[in-house]
């Protein structure tokens, strides 16, 4: 960007310092009544330590955050093709519902007689999830996908313990392509993780699986459709093998969007699967969260679902909060992400059984359309057959250009797009995983494909320098990750980089 400005702002893009650089602690954006001056009952534990929290008046605070917000990309601005993240449209109806009086403002510990509507809503959501997945039980409380994985793996652990195999079955199998949360979760449950190989076609190698199965195997964690965007053809056989070996089949349901309403995990031999409501059922990602990760269970694992449970006694709904048969304990305080349950149910009811199936089919159609349009210009390792909801590319088409996957990403930023998922999954080199979702129009897909094709052609034409200089049209130029990690500055301190620098630019 050329022309220097005095203010540091550039047209509509406003320069904005940190709140700690703008405000002293003498201002506030809230007006509160005068305290009465009652003698305190703090037993001498009144705060002595300094509390140097900056305060802004409301107009200043509004500007601070509106200005910051304009430095973000968002679904509402354009295509957000992050593979395995399912960045789809977030309807505002769902935001409205989550804020209704009687839903958004009720306390988790109100007497259940005063929150029958809330429990009924949770029951309805459970009904939809069980019907859609064809599974007999569901636990709503997990707060995100990884928490759902924990919920599922803890149920497997409990089931093994109940079988008296808690100590003997400690090994969990997972493909190399699995998401980082899978091994991390298995480890968090005290399991060791053993990786199984993939076949050239991007799917689980049955022989590798067979070879690794044994009496010490607790189970398999498999994402299906998998993280290469492919459906595991042999999933039934895989499930049978795992079961035959005495293990359980945990399915990572992050990619459920590809099959919702058309294929039921319950028909595939799955024992437990989490569903990211913030993916398939469109609750907003909010810049990193919150999400919700309900887990559906097979008959075998249902008894080991966590607390609390909802029970009905002559027409009245209530929580079982302390013990319930073989239930595993609490995963969190209260009963989970009600705000997300409301949004997800509103989304489901809006689509209905017909719309949800269309969701899956359009998501898959959109991904295959991009695959077809991009294949000739990029390299799609598994591009011979159709993909599911996302299309995987590797960096072989960049061979010798000096341009890397990350450079393609930054070039896309200048073209007005959020990049695809990069360097994941690990099974291919320089992975680029593109998931358009069903809420993109054909026009938007074509616009994106044209931009990406032009970028690929430029890369091959060899203009590496320009790529390294990207992004040039974004609010920031390329940021130095190494410096951030080498000299970590995780909070503002008076001696932080001089705000002048911000304006300097």
């Amino acid at each position, binding site marked *: 960007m050329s022309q220097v400005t005095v203010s540091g702002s550039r047209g509509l893009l406003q320069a904005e310092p940190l709140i700690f650089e703008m405000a002293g602690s003498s*201002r506030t954006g809230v007006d*509160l009544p005068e305290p009465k001056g009652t003698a305190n009952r*703090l037993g*001498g*534990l009144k*705060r002595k*330590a300094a509390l140097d*929290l900056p305060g*802004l008046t409301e107009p200043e605070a509004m500007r601070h*955050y*509106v200005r910051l*917000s*304009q*430095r973000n990309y*968002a*679904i509402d601005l354009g295509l957000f093709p992050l593979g395995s993240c399912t960045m789809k449209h977030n309807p505002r*109806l769902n935001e409205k*519902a989550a804020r209704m009086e009687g839903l958004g403002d*009720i306390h*988790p510990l*109100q007497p259940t007689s005063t929150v029958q*509507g809330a429990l009924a809503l949770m029951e309805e959501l459970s009904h939809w999830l069980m019907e859609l997945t064809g599974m007999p039980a569901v636990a709503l409380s997990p*707060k*995100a996908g990884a928490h759902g994985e*924990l919920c599922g793996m803890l149920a497997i652990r409990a089931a093994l313990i109940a079988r008296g195999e808690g100590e003997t079955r400690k090994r969990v199998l997972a493909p190399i392509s699995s998401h*980082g949360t899978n091994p*991390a979760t298995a480890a968090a449950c005290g399991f060791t*993780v053993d990786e199984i190989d993939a076949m050239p076609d991007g799917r689980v190698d049955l022989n590798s699986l067979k070879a690794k199965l044994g009496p010490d195997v607790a189970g398999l964690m498999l994402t299906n459709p998998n993280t290469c965007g492919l459906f595991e053809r042999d999933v039934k056989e895989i499930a049978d093998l795992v079961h035959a070996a005495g293990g359980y089949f945990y399915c990572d349901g992050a990619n459920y969007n590809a099959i919702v309403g058309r294929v039921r995990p319950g028909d595939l031999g799955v024992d437990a699967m989490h569903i990211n409501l913030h993916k398939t059922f469109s609750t907003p990602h*909010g*810049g*990193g*969260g919150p999400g*919700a990760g309900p887990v559906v269970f097979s008959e075998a694992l249902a008894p080991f679902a*966590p607390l609390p449970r909802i029970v009905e006694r002559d027409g009245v709904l209530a929580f079982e909060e*302390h013990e319930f048969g073989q239930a595993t304990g609490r995963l969190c*305080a*209260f009963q*989970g992400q009600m705000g997300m349950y*409301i949004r997800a149910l509103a989304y*489901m*009811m*809006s689509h209905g*059984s*017909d*719309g949800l199936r269309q969701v899956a089919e359009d998501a898959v*159609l959109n991904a*295959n359309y991009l695959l077809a349009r991009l294949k000739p210009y990029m390299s799609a390792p598994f591009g011979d*057959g*159709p993909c*599911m909801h996302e299309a995987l590319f590797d960096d072989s088409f960049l061979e010798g250009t000096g341009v890397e996957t990350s450079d393609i990403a930054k070039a896309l930023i200048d073209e007005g797009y959020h990049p695809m998922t990069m360097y994941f999954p690990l099974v291919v080199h320089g992975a680029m995983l593109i998931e358009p979702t069903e809420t993109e129009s*054909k026009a938007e897909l074509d616009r994106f494909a044209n931009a990406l094709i032009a970028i690929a052609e430029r890369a091959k034409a060899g203009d590496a320098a320009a790529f390294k200089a990207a992004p040039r049209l974004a609010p*920031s130029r*390329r*940021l130095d990750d190494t410096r951030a*990690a080498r000299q*970590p*500055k995780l*909070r503002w301190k008076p001696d932080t980089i001089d705000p002048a620098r*911000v304006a*300097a630019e």
Partner: protein
Amino acid sequence: MRYLPLTPDDRRAMLGVIGAKSIDDLYIDVPKAAQRAGLVDLPRAQGEAEVERAMRGYAKRNLSPANAPFFIGAGAYRHHIPASVDHLIQRSEFLTAYTPYQPEIAQGTLQSIFEFQTQVAILTGMEVANASMYDGSTACAEAALMAARVTKRNKVILSGGLHPHYAETTKTMAGANGVVLVDSPPAIDGEAEVLKLLDGDTAAVIVQSPNVFGTITELSKIAEAVHAQGALLIAVFTEAISLGLIEPPGAMGADIVVGEGQSIGVALSFGGPYVGLFATREKFMRQMPGRLAGETVDADGKRGFVLTLSTREQHIRRAKATSNICTNSGLCAQAFTMHMTLLGRKGLERLALLNHERACDLADALGAISGVEVLTPRFFNEFAVRTPKKADAVVEALAKRGVLGGVAYSRLKAGAMDDVLLVCATETNTDEDIAAFAVALKEVCS
């Protein structure tokens, strides 16, 4: 369907480009048997007005705190949220953004997280804080796991004042990972009791102040004893606003401070989503769970922020990660930092003081009822009272009178102290509310 842009013509044209006859061709990898011919047995699509009506139907079957004298706390608190905060978090650029993995087009979120981390560190009196956990209870479990990593020991002691849901969550999450959790018996004013269980194998003790009974505790002595054994002190809070008025754990020797941030900017929403706060000392930085935003510069030398130290996280370290957490509570953290920015020191101190004064008024009003005894010696905005009848029955009887009058401790911990009622007052309570509660409780208890 209003959310699906493809038209039948689009679909035809796209299948043509792909070279497929029908959508079924794209599902060839799915076993025929597993594919449903028809639709699942659920209602068909509905318009926005119909869905909105259905949602109102659910809402109408709940008693909103807006329509009843309300005195429930115990881990979630009713506070006023400025309209500007709720508006700002609904801006497309915050609401519909993903985790800021592409920092050049995510500075809005990243700078906010950096400001959030700093505010949390200042509030708790610690050196560093992360970008949020799911909620206070899971943050507590993560703290136990972190203490075990740091000390390479596996025994963690839980105080009798720790919120029972936090204790259970910690047992479920940390217990499965080899940490041995030891309970100190429930006690209204017994945080120091943990020391009885302290020994050389102890990784950490977890205390809460204000605790679930509302009791505030001086932690310095406990910290000294714990440190003398080479263990860590984990301090928990559930009411973030209390830190505007009381001495922060960081100033009393805590090594890890975790708590629930819902009170600042986040709606009650029947229990979630909330936001877990996690702060510690700089030296333990690399052992922290969750995301961290850090400062750096861009190619023009201009300041910017990125997610950093990711080698702690699952997407890089996989089975060896410090936690399996991925999605956190970003937007709630966004709301927290926005509300905190509006409050500032002045607003937070005033707000905390008002909460305390309301609670004092409530204690006077309830304490005056014969048969009712205030049990908490030192409190912020909530406290425990002994009731002449079983507390859960009292709660139900109050509800019948249209008063949401607290939580029976026995609902949080089965069997224990079944005549103990936990009550809370905040700036949202009027004198009329307090009077109405007192009158109803008097009726119920006599």
